[in-house]
């Protein structure tokens, strides 16, 4: 055929192409970042299970190897394209879960407590959830031979969740398997944007995306058990059961997951809708991880906040850092307040006694109130009576130290039964509750019987439900400062007496 007169140019073009391609493939050999064998991490100590390099944490890498610090990108790389997600994550507690100063020092103190009993190796238990990338790179070791990198300081960095392939919430203690050593792109930023196949291989596998939507994923860290060697006790201690609490609740039965509230762009509206029986799952999820730590988002603390949060994260400057935290704080406050309700349901005089019944309800949380490791986070009720001159005639629960205060908290106890107030996990022998925490959509009624002196007239009854993220003992132990921790008003109710 006559058109074949163009065959020369056809074959010449093919020849050019194959020539160029061959040169490109020869000159640019395949870039391979592989994980590091545990044996190749110098001085890596494995005092317990040799097959589980991160024990007593339940963390695991998909290839069974340690993370390669040269390859794993910092979240400050991700911000180049995922600015919105990065800016949501920055003020959250997930970004500072490893660098939060109280946490970090708490680890040091606990490690020191067990310095002759593999204290440093024991810290893998805590950091499996708080700083999993650092753990997976082998940094929690008596002799650190792993080079530093930004991502190790970012707590739950992007690469952690976005490479996760498996989670076991029943097991808890950080039982997440993540494909850390595939968490890098071979392509440059612009090439990724043209064709994100490699990016999807590294971060967005269908398996990962599906897992990230599940409550089981969150539960792998928000279920925590202490057992040897973490505790000297021989029994399993349930330190945190947030996932279990959710699992047996109305929320789980109605497929309202952790993400639906904690990663919702409009969490308060969502919780309000749930209270009205409307379940409308979000179309898109935020990376704010709304939670219960209002102090570490309080910018009025100024440079102290920076200090407490362990400095500024890579990829953001101080001014921007404060702006982002400021943006998150009001919603965190509202989020906390949306969880609980207090009602004075009955008040009556019996002889010289005033009987007051207060109902405390968990109206907005899909887990118990309070939840988490509640040896520190705790909630208590204040009942205050004032007379017609606004003089206080009774006030129980003004502080969480008052006698007979109604308080919801865990008590860690040592071998002798003495209460541990400073979160010395590794010497915790037993855990008890001061009173049962309040399950979702349930209430507890507290009855007060107050003896009134003759002629005393109560004009106003006030019930305040307070919340505090930690006890001062923890701050004294970790920061060597006696700083009062601000209490937060979750809910209140007032009744005027006629």
């Amino acid at each position, binding site marked *: *055929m*006559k*058109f074949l007169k*163009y065959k020369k*140019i*056809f074959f*010449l*073009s*093919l020849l*050019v*192409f*194959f020539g*160029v*391609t061959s040169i*490109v*493939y020869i000159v*640019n*050999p*395949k*870039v391979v970042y592989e994980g590091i064998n545990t044996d190749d991490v110098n001085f890596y100590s494995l005092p317990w299970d040799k097959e589980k390099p991160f024990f007593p944490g339940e963390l695991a890498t998909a290839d069974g190897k340690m993370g390669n610090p040269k390859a794993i990108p910092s979240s400050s790389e991700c911000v*180049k*394209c995922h600015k919105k997600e990065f800016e949501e994550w920055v003020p959250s507690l997930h970004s500072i879960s490893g660098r939060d100063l109280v946490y970090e020092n708490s680890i040091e103190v606990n490690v020191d407590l067990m310095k002759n009993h593999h204290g440093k190796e024991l810290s893998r238990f805590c950091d499996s959830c708080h700083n999993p990338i650092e753990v997976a790179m082998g940094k929690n070791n008596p002799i650190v031979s792993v080079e530093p990198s930004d991502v190790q300081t970012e707590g739950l960095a992007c690469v952690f969740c976005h490479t996760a392939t498996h989670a076991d919430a029943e097991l808890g203690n950080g039982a997440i398997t993540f494909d850390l050593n595939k968490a890098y792109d*071979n*392509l*440059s*930023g*612009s*090439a*990724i*944007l*043209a*064709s*994100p*196949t*490699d990016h*999807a*291989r590294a971060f*967005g596998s269908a398996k990962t995306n599906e897992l990230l939507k599940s409550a089981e994923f969150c539960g792998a860290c928000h279920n925590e058990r202490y057992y040897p060697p973490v505790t000297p006790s021989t029994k399993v201690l349930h330190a945190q059961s947030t996932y279990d609490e959710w699992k047996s609740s109305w929320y789980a039965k109605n497929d309202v997951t952790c993400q639906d509230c904690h990663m919702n762009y409009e969490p308060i509206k969502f919780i309000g809708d749930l209270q009205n029986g409307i379940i409308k799952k979000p179309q898109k999820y935020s990376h704010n991880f709304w939670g219960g730590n209002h102090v570490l988002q309080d910018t009025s603390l100024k440079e102290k906040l920076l200090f407490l949060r362990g400095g500024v994260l890579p990829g953001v400057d101080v001014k921007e850092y404060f702006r982002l935290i400021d943006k998150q704080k009001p919603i965190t406050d509202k989020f906390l307040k949306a969880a609980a309700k207090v009602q004075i349901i009955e008040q009556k005089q019996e002889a010289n006694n005033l009987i007051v019944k207060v109902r405390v309800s968990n109206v907005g949380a899909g887990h118990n109130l309070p939840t988490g490791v509640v040896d520190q986070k705790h909630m208590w009720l204040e009942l205050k009576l004032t007379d017609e001159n606004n003089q206080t005639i009774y006030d129980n629960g003004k502080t969480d130290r008052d006698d007979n205060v109604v308080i919801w908290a865990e008590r860690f106890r040592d071998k002798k039964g003495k209460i541990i107030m400073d979160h010395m996990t590794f010497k915790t022998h037993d855990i008890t509750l001061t009173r049962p925490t309040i399950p979702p959509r349930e209430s507890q009624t507290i009855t007060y019987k107050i003896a009134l002196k003759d002629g005393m007239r109560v004009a106003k009854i006030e019930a305040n439900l307070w919340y505090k993220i930690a006890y001062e003992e923890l701050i004294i132990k970790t920061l060597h400062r006696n700083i009062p921790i601000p209490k937060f008003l979750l809910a209140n109710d007032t009744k005027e007496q006629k």
Partner: protein
Amino acid sequence: MKQFALFTISATVLLIASGYVYYFLAPLNWGAGEIIMHIHLWLGVLFSFYLVFAIPLHVKDNNSKVKRKDFKLLSYVLMASIGFTLFSGILHFIPYISYFFTPIYYQFDTYDNISKIHLVFATLTSILFLLHLSLHYKKGAK
């Protein structure tokens, strides 16, 4: 006319070959795949600009000479196919260039669909182009 055909044939060969290599072989060596992709994208953009001006001229010069209906129909289908190929290709180029300004990107699924559309129409365009050329030189084509 001859120059138009020569340039179009060589560009099509280079684009189809580089596109196939990237689509199917890049995972074997992403580093090399990236260079192939850069070549593919920039050549694609240059060729798109060229076609946007060259095709109307080509049609204008030759439309009145074409007598056979099947050839005419084939030419229009070819043009439509070129349009889809170029459009889906540009959709890949927009995020690529945006990286240097304000990054724009789509959902993974969207990328996947655009890539498939681009691949299918590029293949179809090549076949139609080959047919176009063969009919063009067939006796009595015009």
